[in-house]
């Protein structure tokens, strides 16, 4: 575990790989106890935070949690509800009772049709991945303008870290969804800078020193 020390180079682990002695430490996500000791269960970088060892996966699907702010795209409409693609394994339900408008039965399509984007919040997730979203809340709305970019889930913390700098540099309104979709609205140049920065993070965010490099490109405005 010596390479978990502060300042040590990040250790890349693969599924099944022993991560050494973890006595007295808590096991977080991507780590499991097995007959042959403590092993990694995902491909990613081993990290330790406050006595908890976990693997930050390099690739991961979005698994929704209650309270997540998401950018969803309407995939299907029925008389009284919408199905949202939330960039995860399962679609979410948005019932008309949780929409911000008064919707009559059979009138859902007139408020929001297939292909439209929304800013919503995950209200409820059960163990079988049944997912219900709500648009009742401050700032939750239909997205009518701007651009929706994608960023890999595991790089969201880095995106949130640099968000302030990116907003200033691009002069755009930016909302980062917990599902890896980022809404960017502003002028063309600003959107281009923001989207290129997000793409750079997705491609190189796992490399040591990437954050400093990306911050430098934002300041230079040449991402």
């Amino acid at each position, binding site marked *: 575990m010596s390479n978990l020390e502060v300042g040590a180079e990040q250790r890349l682990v*693969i599924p*099944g790989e022993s991560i050494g002695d973890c006595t007295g430490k808590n096991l977080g996500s991507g780590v499991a106890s*097995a007959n042959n000791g403590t*092993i990694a269960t995902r491909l990613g970088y081993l990290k330790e935070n406050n006595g908890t060892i976990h693997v930050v996966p390099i*690739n991961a*699907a979005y698994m929704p949690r209650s309270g997540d702010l998401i950018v969803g795209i309407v995939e299907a409409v029925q008389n009284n509800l919408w199905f949202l693609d939330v960039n995860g394994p*399962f679609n979410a339900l948005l019932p008309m009772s949780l929409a911000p408008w008064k919707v009559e039965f059979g009138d859902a399509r007139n408020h929001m049709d297939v292909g439209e984007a929304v800013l919503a919040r995950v209200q409820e997730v059960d*163990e079988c*991945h049944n997912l219900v979203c709500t648009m009742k809340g401050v700032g939750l709305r239909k997205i009518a303008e701007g651009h929706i970019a994608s960023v890999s889930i595991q790089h969201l913390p880095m995106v949130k870290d640099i968000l302030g700098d990116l907003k200033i540099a691009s002069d755009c309104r930016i909302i980062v969804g917990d599902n890896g979709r980022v809404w960017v609205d502003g002028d063309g140049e600003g959107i281009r800078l923001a989207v290129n920065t997000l793409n750079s993070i997705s491609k190189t965010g796992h490399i040591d020193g990437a954050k400093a490099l990306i911050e430098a490109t934002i300041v230079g405005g040449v991402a």
Partner: protein
Amino acid sequence: MGGYGDVKLLNDDGSRLDGRAIDEMRPVEIRAGVLPVADGSAYVKHGLNEAIVAVYGPMEAHPRRIQLQDQAVLDVRYNMAPFSTSDRIRPGFNRRSREISKVTAEALSSVVLVERYPRSKIRVEIEILSAEAGTRCVGITAAAVALADAGIPMRDLLVGVAAGKVEDTVVLDLDKAEDNYGQADLPMGIMPATGEIAFMQMDGDLSMDELNTAVEYCFKGAADIYELQKAALKDRYNGGDSQ
């Protein structure tokens, strides 16, 4: 299988026709992340066998009747390209590819933490580009790397490796002639970190001693392939400094 008495498969000095020792594998090359559109992918070249595997998901399992309420379904599709052998193969599923898809899915279920994704499906597409002998083993080796590359939680990797018997001698990693004219074939799926066996089939006859020797050879071969799997996954993100 069962042997052809008049086909010579070993040289007089005990080596094999292609010059390998009896416990020596064909050269193996593994690369991870070869398909940009897939969630995870891998390419494996094992002798003259070549396989490419793409993994998609987890995603909602459709049709709904295949969903399992407490775990994910591994939807494995093994397919040999029409140009993969000297005789053109008719495209599409056949009885053999159905069988191999099924046993591969069952083997991979032993290593994938399927209980993490109830009602979901993980799609594994195995395409054999070139076939020499032992394509199911190559498919399993590549599928394990592709699943790890896709970020699917797993308790271990899985290595496909085969041993067999030619001219009453147990040998590791049969080539085409040995597969066609040998006396036995024993493909295995081995979880290298734990040493567990996730998959084993046998064609032909082996005595108990021969079986033990064949299993021992398979474990030796699996250890070598495991190192290549690890190197392939680490190379993809470390810029090639793990070899």
